[in-house]
């Protein structure tokens, strides 16, 4: 099964230059290992600025442009796991979520099949 992991921007934890460096290294190592193990299917950081598009009746209008993603999503990963529990374990093991927040969405494979 595939899961989408959405990581919030890093907050809290050791904020010293050395501490942040160590955390970055741990995250990079975790990603490398998960890729080697075939757990990660895809993933990328998201640009700090985003644009919200809202359609209102006929036509569309951009309601917000260049918003700062301060409280939004910093990066995403698509991972492969047997079930939600396994996906949560994988997410919990990611150094980016310690401390931090990661939202785990399960792909609805039944959707669209009628």
């Amino acid at each position, binding site marked *: 099964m595939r899961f989408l992991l959405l*990581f919030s*921007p*890093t*907050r809290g934890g*050791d*904020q*010293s*230059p*050395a*501490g*942040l*460096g*160590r*955390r*970055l*290294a*741990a*995250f*990079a*190592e*975790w*990603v*490398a290992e998960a*890729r*080697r193990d075939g757990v990660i299917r895809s*993933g*990328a*950081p998201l640009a*700090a600025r985003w644009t919200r598009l809202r359609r209102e009746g006929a036509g569309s209008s951009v309601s917000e442009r260049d918003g*700062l993603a301060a409280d939004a999503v*910093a*990066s995403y*990963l698509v991972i492969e796991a047997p079930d939600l529990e396994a996906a949560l374990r994988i997410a919990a093991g990611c150094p*980016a979520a310690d401390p931090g927040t990661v939202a785990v969405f399960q792909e609805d494979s039944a959707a669209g099949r009628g």
Partner: protein
Amino acid sequence: MPPAADDAASRSPGEIGRQVEDLFRREWGSLVAAVARLVRDLDRAEEIVQDTLTAALDRWPLGGVPERPGAWLMTAARNRAFDHLRRQRRIDTKEAAIAYDIEAGHAQRPDDEDRDPHGLADDRLRLIFTCCHPALARESQVALTLRLVAGLTTAEIARAFLSAEATVAQRLVRAKRLIRERDLPYGVPSAPELPARMVPVLAVLYLVFNEGYTAGAGDTLLRPDLCEEGLRLAGLVADLMPAEAEVLGLVSLMELQASRAAARADDNGAMVLLPDQDRTRWDRDRIERGLRHLARADALGRPGPYQLQAAIAACHARAGSWDATDWRRIAALYAALQAMAPSPVVELNRAVAVSMAEGPAAALELLDRLDAPALSQYHLLPATRADFLRRLGRRQEAAAEYRRALALTANRVEQGFLRGRIAECEGQEA
């Protein structure tokens, strides 16, 4: 842009950790300095830089480490600073932001105190001079330099100086407030001011180094992290001001002293004095670097106290053994140092050199003329006197002086050494 994950796969976690940690530490001071010049607020600058490093933490593991990570961090930090300025000052366009940048750096103040009189447009230097402004207490200068230039946390600074974290935090808050309230200049002093303003800068760097080299308290003689930090900062100032002989002298002095670090304690952590040190354990690379810096300083033809101290350290570094040391030259260098920067500690050291060149009796006379009250709490005065007395065979008096020294030091390694000497004197007396 090479993918970080692939990169990571080819290197050990420890190696990656050290590289990124080094990068963040190295860039921290430059980033804070550059942002502080723009936003003119040290707290805000720190916040912006922290946000920038956090953004790298969020991006690099998945998106890849940029080819020039330092440049990436600088651009991201400056963009954040401009965002802040736009919010604060309604700078609406990039052109206006760039204009503001130029203005902030060169033309904002009518008295032009921000202009770099030596063409040294490095923000880090401005930051170092601000942190070491004479209006700030020495403890605050040290704490600010370590926090803002070296990127140590409050907890790390407190640990390094064995102070309470709250005390260091308060010191930092007060120092930043004083800089803000008194509007202390953020820049390199003009040429006439420079020699005087250089004094606290070099003193702070040497204090950081020395705190690591001769730990005032604790279970170890050395705190290598502080030694390295002092050396790194001094090297940075030397890179930025390569024509300042005293800066080169300080780097030379630190390198030469640090070269002996491995030989200063035995395998059990007990102190080994210079005469007994295994000179094969001295770091030859450091000695070479120290001698090179000293030669560069000499060539500038402006002698100063740090150069003289480095020249003394160089005499030791060049000597094959304690007995083969050129003690007459060292005594002469101490005399020159005493003339240039009089201090009872220098006179104490001169006495040690004289004891080697002319014998302990002549040196003891020098000690007797020393300004003892100024050194009343300095354990090396009674320890030195004890050594002279021991060498003169006056062991009972020596043991009494060693006991005085013992009562004045909090370093457990030194205490162990002094107890050994007391036992030796008393044993031979009996």
